[in-house]
């Protein structure tokens, strides 16, 4: 096995190009190590341009090599994209969070990957660069080829960063998951929301749940029903019912039954919406 630690993006792209599909990007290796290491690895974990968290005007750019630990403790992310901070804080264990990256979480394409669910709710887009230096920007939903299968070919394409609009004064986001154990436990469900309030009613809602489909899944019907509604207990109960009715989920011997999973999605949907609303209200009050 050959292992190459890239000092710059160009270098990483060059090595990939020369290897003609035989080399693979490696970041924290928390997933790759389990799947089996490639014969040639190009380590991009320490590329400065992939490790940055930057706010530019109303947008936040999170580098693909930002670790879960770094994202969870970034004041910028905590304030402007709380859902992502919560999701990253919930991943695995301290060891996994210190190594695992947001880009890896996305490309690994697990159906209930925590960071990916939060990013989907935030409306993030991925910026990619291929070995010929061509850049493109993709919706997250377009990056999934199937369960645990990404459309991103990591032998010829690198995720550079994730970009999304920061939560404005009238906006808030939140993330919640349900697992059988408090650490090192893949979630039975995870749900994230981003809301915008105007005149005390929902003006904008993005509600995402997993595992429902290969990619984090938006609950469009529930979102739509919320528009114009006041965030109160009645609305929360409505969300609970609508969200669990909207999803078609599978049960599994290892995690839980389909019915219970559907119920949990409802409960968590209600909770993340209210938590996101509280974040807006907290801003308004202070």
């Amino acid at each position, binding site marked *: 096995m050959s292992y190459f630690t890239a000092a710059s993006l160009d270098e990483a792209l060059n090595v990939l190009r020369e290897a003609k599909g035989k080399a693979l990007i490696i970041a924290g290796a928390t997933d790759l190590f389990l799947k089996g290491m490639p014969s040639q690895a190009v380590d991009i974990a320490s590329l400065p341009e992939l490790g940055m968290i930057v706010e530019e005007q109303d947008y936040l750019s999170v580098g693909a090599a930002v670790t879960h630990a770094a994202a969870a403790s970034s004041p910028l992310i905590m304030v402007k994209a709380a859902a992502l901070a919560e999701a990253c804080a919930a991943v695995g*264990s301290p060891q996994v969070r210190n190594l695992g990256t947001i880009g890896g979480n996305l490309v690994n394409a697990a159906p209930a990957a925590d960071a990916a669910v939060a990013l989907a709710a935030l409306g993030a887009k991925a910026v990619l660069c291929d070995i010929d230096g061509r850049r493109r920007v993709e919706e997250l939903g377009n990056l999934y080829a199937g369960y645990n299968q990404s459309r991103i070919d990591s032998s010829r394409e690198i995720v550079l960063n994730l970009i999304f609009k920061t939560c404005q004064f009238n906006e808030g986001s939140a993330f919640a998951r*349900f697992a*059988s*154990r*408090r*650490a*090192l*436990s*893949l979630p039975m469900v995870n749900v994230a929301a981003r809301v915008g309030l105007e005149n005390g009613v929902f003006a904008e809602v993005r509600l995402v749940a997993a595992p429902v489909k290969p990619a984090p899944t938006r609950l469009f019907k529930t979102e739509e029903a919320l528009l114009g509604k006041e965030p109160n207990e009645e609305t929360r109960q409505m969300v609970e019912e609508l969200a669990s009715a909207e999803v078609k989920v599978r049960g599994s*011997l*290892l995690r*839980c*039954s389909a019915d*219970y999973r559907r*119920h*949990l999605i409802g*409960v968590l949907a209600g909770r993340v919406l209210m938590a996101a609303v509280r974040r807006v209200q907290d801003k308004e009050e202070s």
Partner: protein
Amino acid sequence: MQPETPAVRELISTEKNYQSAEVWTKVTGKAIYGIDLRLPGMLYGKILRSSHPHARIKKIKTSAALKMPGVRTVLTGSDLSCSPYGIVINDEMPLEPEHVRYVGDEVAAVAAVDDKKAEEALKLIHVEYETLPAVFDTGEAQLPEAPQLHENFPGNVAWRREVVRGDPESAFRNADLVVEGKFHIPQFHPAYLEPVACVAVSEPDGGITLHTAVQSPDIVRDLLAQVLKLPLSRVRIVGPVMGGGFGGKVYGNLNLYLISALLSMQTGLPVKMQLTREEEFTAGRPMVAAEIKMRMALGNDGTFLGREMDLITDNGAYSAQAPWVSNTLAERNDSVYRIPAIKTKARLVYTNKVPTGQYRAYGNQVANFACESLIDMAAKKLKIDPLEMRLRNCVRPGETTVHGLQIKSCGLAECLAAATEEIGWTKRKKGHGYGLSAAIHASGSVVFDPNLRGASARISLELDGNISLFTGEQDYGQGTHAAFSQIAAIALDLEPSRISVYSKDSLVTPYSMGALGMRQATIGGKAVQLAAEKLREKIIRTSSEMIGEPVIMENGRIRSASGRQVDFTEIAHYYHGQTSGLTLTGEGSYVPPESSYDDTKYGNIAVTYSFAAHAAEVEIDPETGALTVHRIVAAHDSGRIINHLSASGQIYGGVAQGFGMSCLEGYLFNEGRVANPTLADYKIPTALDVPDITPLFIETDDPEGPYGAKGLGEIVQVPVPGALANAVADAAGGWVTEMPITAEKIFRILSNRGAAK
């Protein structure tokens, strides 16, 4: 009563936390575990396992594997000349020659120059199977049309027992209340950090030395000699440090040991083998699974009148210790309280699943789940406080229980009072659930082997004035050896750090039953006390012979009436010279009274009994059923506590494990295949999950145990499932009767009651 000498007082005040030197090797990473062992020229062995739950082996082709470079030998069942063996039932072969009975059954083995080549070679072995219908359910396995796993066991019943004590019929006829329940308990694995590992060395004299960390090395030695048809003196077990056992390594993994020995005998080279984590789960010996149907008869005032149990335990494909575990599971809880009438029917049934064995408390802990739940169900119906109900019925000192156990020291009532007081039983937090459970566990069983009930120890004064203690009792983290040093230190009036304990070579240590049945501190410790007292006498006698005056011994020094002082070094050298090289040695053997078992197994079974009561405080999320266990208070009567640090450690660990099995763990199967054979999916608690644990010691003074001590290591886990089941029921309004108590099951209870929000 034990004499409270100044030495005893001193020890209990200052040495409560003494730890042996080995502890520090673990903390600093210097300990050598079985997995670390490497010997020159060593080969690596791997096992090819059945991929079918039930099949006949028609043909095995090994030629391709044998031809592979680096492969030294390949063994199959037909190469073996041994007969079926077992711990209780002879139903198992190291490699099955023609009939495989579970996914994981040993079919062939390879020894190669490295791990990878051995693994590769397995893929070159071709096995032709004829698959047979398989049975995974204990109920179906007993039907006439069910496939039969073993010729000699029609109906797939490996073991059965029926017991009646007192008059259960009239107890139930005259009862004011009868409560009943059905409880389901899956297989549990202790999930010790170090999977079983060994290195077998075929010796020039035809014997075998097996390097492995096992709880009962002498019993393993007996079995190896028997199966391999070797003289006992040619089998030697040498123990590295053990990376956790918890009752799951009483006999380690016998098939692994036998296969590595056979591979070594075949090649003449040392052969190392170790289970992978997946093999531990799929081909280790998890604790038996159980279905319990139970009824209990009570009077209106909460007096227990009788109990009936119908128990079916799932043996899996072979028996290991499952008959013993089933027996303890069936009856030990009957002796926690005064229950005058008992009717028990137990069957152990073969299925095409992983064979089962033992984990920490021989099934007492999972029976506790059922028995203690039922008690609280009755308390609720009779509107009696569960604490009141337990105090009214619990066993007291001097009593003989329904199965004939003779209770000497017993602080159970005090444990119940202390645990409830500490948890705030009468000052409950709103919305929290509280649960209580009580337990008994035999300390120092005398029925495993009636001919070897006790223990022995040898203790010598070395030339440098320090002491060497030889014992067959194993310490793999419980603190047994620190306690032994302390016990010998009391007898010899010196600091425990001057006493080194050796236990890891069957060639030189006294024979022992090993670490099981909470016997080591009680029985083994008593032998150490007796040996040390003998040595003390000898030292005094030899000293006075040396200086020609009577002497007394104090603080590790010997003094005559005239003021002449002799230290241990001097006396050791004197004796060494007088005998041309011998050391002063005390041998102690403690032989407890015989069991008074009759044909129905009525009678006393152990040197003494330990008791415990646990109280749990929990909270439930009404929307999801998610459970938070805030706290478990563990009150224990283990007699006089020799070492508080070790004893508390046993409670922290045992309660954490008890919490894990109660709320997180358990085997899942898919067509007989273990569906969660990894630590990712078989979920043991992480540091974030373990509740706050408060150990409390009710120190009775046991007349049998050394300086009043009784066993602790197994009972720590026993009350946990019952206490948690009852606390959850208190919060949820109904009992989860299937372990583990998951959020989904709690949610189902809430939904059925219409209490889910």
